[in-house]
């Protein structure tokens, strides 16, 4: 466990090393929030409701989507796929460490850092536009944070699952970009799933991506009963087992096939 703690610490230090990047990172989320603020202000100009949403509930949704960006980020999958493609995986295979645990420690450090950034971004936006965000209390917020630990695990496993494709097709850059655009959309990253057109709503409610954005935001907004939340957690665990099982299978097959080409 100590070696993975060391990986966590090193990854954390890497993340905080450059201050300009730190600032730039925070700005990124703020910009897209501002765009959403203007566009939804225009939509709500002559109306009070859009679906079941008021302006402030829609903005709360959009703000939390930006906050939850750290949950649905997909850089780990891309990095692992790149290591497989370049042959750098060999370095890890000869070390007395579990490659996946190594990455999980690095993933956690990275996400923890980004979560802090996103909280800062959230507060900055709230200072600028204090009236648009609904805050239902700390207990609901903590409930969301608890749920996010499960969402992160789903995301990590899905990222790894996608990365293993690199064993079979070598370069997955284009596939990865295309796939994660779909993931972002079906997670509710652009519009809430409940106002999507019929077919997409059904697909979005079936796939696990909703647990990265839509579901936690809805928990926060108090739209789910305790039973629905527990049901969500149960489905999440089902997906974790499902992804974990197939990941293990593909990973072992992939390592067997791995030829360490590249560098």
């Amino acid at each position, binding site marked *: 466990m100590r070696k993975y703690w060391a990986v966590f610490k090193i990854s954390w230090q890497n993340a905080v090393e450059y201050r300009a990047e730190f600032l730039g990172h925070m700005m990124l989320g703020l910009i897209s929030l501002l765009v959403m603020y203007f*566009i939804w202000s225009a939509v709500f100009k002559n109306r009070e409701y*859009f679906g079941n949403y008021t302006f402030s509930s829609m903005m709360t949704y959009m703000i939390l989507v930006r906050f939850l960006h750290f949950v649905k980020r997909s850089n780990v999958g891309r990095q692992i796929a790149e290591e497989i493609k370049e042959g750098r995986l060999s370095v890890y295979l000869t070390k007395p460490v579990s490659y996946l645990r190594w990455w999980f420690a690095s993933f956690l450090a990275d996400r923890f850092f980004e979560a802090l950034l996103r909280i800062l971004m959230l507060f900055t936006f709230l200072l600028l536009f204090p009236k648009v965000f609904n805050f239902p209390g700390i207990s609901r917020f903590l409930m969301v944070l608890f749920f996010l630990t499960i969402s992160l695990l789903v995301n990590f496993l899905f990222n790894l699952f996608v990365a293993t494709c690199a064993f079979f097709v070598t370069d997955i850059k284009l596939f990865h970009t295309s796939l994660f655009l779909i993931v972002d959309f079906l997670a509710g990253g652009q519009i809430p799933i409940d106002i999507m057109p019929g077919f997409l709503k059904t697909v979005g409610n079936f796939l696990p991506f909703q647990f990265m954005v839509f579901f936690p935001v809805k928990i926060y907004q108090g739209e789910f009963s305790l039973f629905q939340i527990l049901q969500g957690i149960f489905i999440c665990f089902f997906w974790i087992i499902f992804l974990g099982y197939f990941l293990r299978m593909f990973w072992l097959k992939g390592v067997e096939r791995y030829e360490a080409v590249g560098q």
Partner: protein
Amino acid sequence: MKQLVSKIRRYLRLYFYFARFSLENVLIYRINSLLIGLAPIIWMVTTVIFLSVIFKGTKEIGGWSFWELLLLTGIQEIIYLASWTTFLGNLINFIYSVDSGKFDLTLLRPVNHRFFVSFGALDITSILSIVNSVVLVSLSLANLKFSFSPDRILLFLFGLIIAYLVIYLLSFILASFSLFWIKGENFIRWLMETLDFDRYPAEIYSDWFKVFLLTFLPILFLGYVPTGILLGKLPGYFIFFGILIVAWLYIVSTLIWKKGLKNYQSASI
């Protein structure tokens, strides 16, 4: 004059080799050959869905109808993809090369360094996607009932050239900052994110913010200005403003580049 012609021919030949090498680099992997251009199609489909959902509740946004907004999206996407095809990826690689110290190798090449870091490779994956944007623009134009005039089309074409130059110069300036701050990839990402402001009509922004996006960070020249001119929503003199902005950005970019080169320390590796 003869020297200039031979210099241009040399750089065109060099650019042809860059393009051929880039294409070979992408097509070397079979899955890439199959998926080339897919990501922008997905992005476009999700954007159209987003806009159609929004327009369920309203007939216009900032005085722009659904098809006008799709036209704006299509035109902006053409400029954006042209940028990706020709220089954005190169500038991101340049930032990484400054971070790793590999920029030294570029400085040793017998070629104009600014040209090389900007146009040293082509992202062929974006070229096919431009076709989707052209389809979207054509579809929008077919659904918009307005009459074209030759002078408006000419101004629009000028607008597109200005749009390309503005995004290039802005990206180049931000990429050149990495010569001072080393880790500069976020600057480009930051610019890409601000392009979202240009995906919607500027009428939805407050006046001061609109002025800001037309002058200090002139990203509205990418999609909003050419589209506005084509639709007759903006007067033609915006093109003149655009030329002034391009000239100003060129001066700034040259100053920052030269100062940055002096500042470069070849750290890392």
